């Protein structure tokens, strides 16, 4: 827990002396960054290190650090070193806005990458676009693509709910199927629900019920009787982080899997680890990345190898990969622009063709959404797992295409 230590009243006690000493050490370890002549390129990185998405956030940081390290190892950008400034946004929009403002005003960052909640990223985007600082968002959102929230400084590296739900629905829903939704009652859940319903309309699958649950709920038992009484063929659970683990676990406890298939928009590596293979068995969901892609994709194999080398043999996760490609694409654009001048970097990002984790990607001109492949994964049965990391089978790997996205005119951009 970070805190603002204030020495208490009175003289110098041993405790105060210790406080002062540790503050001194902290200052030495983090040299002041206000110097304008500093040649270092600074990237701000707000992410929810504490709270229900902590596991995913930590992977984002590890991967972002890797992207920075690889560039620094090669001599940096135009001879300048790159530094990543990680801040805990506590999954709170207000906190994120404050931290981002600090990063811009006090730490003088050249760009911001990060956030892990759809609501929080919009708060970060508000701050960055008002100050003309580049922001590469690595959290799923449809809203950030829309003209209302867009600015020329806003880039979206993550998948968006529209792409994810369409890919998942294509693999799991058929005409005439009945679908029930359990949805976290905040921006992410609402956007996923909207995506699924749009995909259902195209396929011809009917919605038999929608249940919104409070964000961060620990107990889902009271939603189960109603969901079962709806008798759907498929249950779509649109929530994130620990909510996903708890909701699926409790649905399975109630025997829901015997009655219907469980589908999620985004199947999370860390949450599958948190509740085990038996609970997730047969659950299908979308993903931006899965390490097992390495058998069919050269870039994935290289990314995995670099991550393993830097992290003692561990494998990168889905949200981790966003940290890598988000920071990595930005650094590639800075490389191309020869520095940090915002307009040049924006132009370089718009022109960039990059392949950092899983195949070719580029930012679409009108809304700066990264056009990229979408994976659909199915959680493996325990007996089918080759090792502890062998979590998912790749059901589909849809290559990136402009047709996956909503059109520029639908989003309100001038075409």
């Amino acid at each position, binding site marked *: *827990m970070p805190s603002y230590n204030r020495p208490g009243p009175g003289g110098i006690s041993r405790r105060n002396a210790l406080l002062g000493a540790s503050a001194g050490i902290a200052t030495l370890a983090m040299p002041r960054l206000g110097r304008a002549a500093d040649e270092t390129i600074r990237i701000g990185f707000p992410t929810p290190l*504490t*709270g*229900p998405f*902590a*596991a995913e956030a*930590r992977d984002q940081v590890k991967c972002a650090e890797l992207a920075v390290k690889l560039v620094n190892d090669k001599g940096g950008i135009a001879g300048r070193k790159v530094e990543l400034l990680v801040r805990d946004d506590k999954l709170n929009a207000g906190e994120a806005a404050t931290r981002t403002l600090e990063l811009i005003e006090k730490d003088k960052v050249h760009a911001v990458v990060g956030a892990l909640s759809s609501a929080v990223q919009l708060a970060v985007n508000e701050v960055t676009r008002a100050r003309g600082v580049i922001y590469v968002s690595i959290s799923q959102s449809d809203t950030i693509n829309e003209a209302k929230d867009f600015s020329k400084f806003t880039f979206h590296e993550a998948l968006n709910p529209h792409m994810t739900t369409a890919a998942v629905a294509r693999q799991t829903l058929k005409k005439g199927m009945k679908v029930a939704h359990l949805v976290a*009652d905040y921006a992410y859940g609402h956007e996923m629900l909207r995506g699924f319903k749009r995909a259902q309309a195209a396929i011809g699958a009917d919605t038999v019920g929608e*249940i*919104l*649950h*409070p964000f*961060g*709920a*620990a*107990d889902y*038992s*009271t*939603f*189960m*009787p*109603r969901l*079962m*009484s709806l008798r759907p063929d498929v249950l779509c659970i649109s929530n994130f982080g*620990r909510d996903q*683990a*708890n909701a699926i*676990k*409790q649905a399975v*406890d*109630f*025997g829901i899997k015997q009655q219907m298939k469980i589908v999620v928009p985004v199947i999370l590596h*860390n*949450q599958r*680890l*948190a*509740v*085990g293979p*038996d*609970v997730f068995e047969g659950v299908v969901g979308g993903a931006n990345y899965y390490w097992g892609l390495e058998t069919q994709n050269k870039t994935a194999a290289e990314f995995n190898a670099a991550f393993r080398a830097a992290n003692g043999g561990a494998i990168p996760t889905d949200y981790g990969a966003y940290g890598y490609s988000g920071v990595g694409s930005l650094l590639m654009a800075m490389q191309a622009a020869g520095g940090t001048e915002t307009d040049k970097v924006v132009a370089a990002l718009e022109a960039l063709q990059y392949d950092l984790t899983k195949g070719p990607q580029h930012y679409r001109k009108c809304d700066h959404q990264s056009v990229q492949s979408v994976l659909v994964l199915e959680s493996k049965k325990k007996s089918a797992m080759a090792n502890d990391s062998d979590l998912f089978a790749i059901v589909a790997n849809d290559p990136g295409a402009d047709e996956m996205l909503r059109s520029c005119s639908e989003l309100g951009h001038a075409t």
Partner: protein
Amino acid sequence: MDLSLIIMQLFSGIALGAVLVITALGLTIVFGMLGVVNFAHGALFMIGAYAGLYLASLTGSFWWGLLLAPLLVGAFGMLIERVLVRRLYGRSVDDPLLLTFGLSYILVEGVRIVFGSDGIPFPTPSQLIGVVDLGFGFFPKYRLFVIALVAVVLLALWLMLEKTRVGLIVRAGARDPQIMRVLGVDIGRVWLAIFGLGVGLAALGGVLAGPMRSVNPEMGTLVLAEAFVVTVIGGLGSIVGAVVAGLMVGVCISMVALFAPEMATIVMFALMAAVLLVRPQGLFGLKGRA
């Protein structure tokens, strides 16, 4: 909407209430007897879940974890009482509150350091996997077991407090510790045991919750809030109050989940506000205590 769904929903509410009762019980006992508001209750709930998981994997049996974790964590609670809380008796109620509040941060960070901040799977014991047909719907075996165990714990507590000599001393000690001292009872030992009991109950709640939720360092945060709401509705210090309020809150959440699911968390706070307006001391609380 058919009747069986409503019955099923009521039943889910009672099951949820049982979990709330067990978490609120330890909090209310410690306050009632010692006048200490234990803000580390949620963290100790979490410690209980981790201890249960660790002991279960060590012994290879959930049942050993369920038995030993509350005892061990309860003993840890007694250590906390002896070393930390005891020094603050007789001071304003804020002091132990601040102490335990700080302690909760230390415990959560400690677990993060030792076990990491990721969730850890806590498998349901194999005997209790699956569902039972109750006639009006299917219900997980494990949750039925939790209801039964909570009932047994409540009965045991009631017998101990009302029917034994120890219980008599405890009840008398809560009323007038001074007189108890005069009568030659070492009230310090009674307080030690009560604090241990309260912490042990928190840990029991944690172990029981383990197979229903993912086990992670922050799992106690929400539980503390829930336990407080239940305790306040029931009346601080009242065991009967905790039971009635726990079940009431569980059923309220469940019924609201049926008609306005997004309000399911808010409803317990609304209920608390409503009760406090009518009875500021809670349903079963004594005047001047809350």
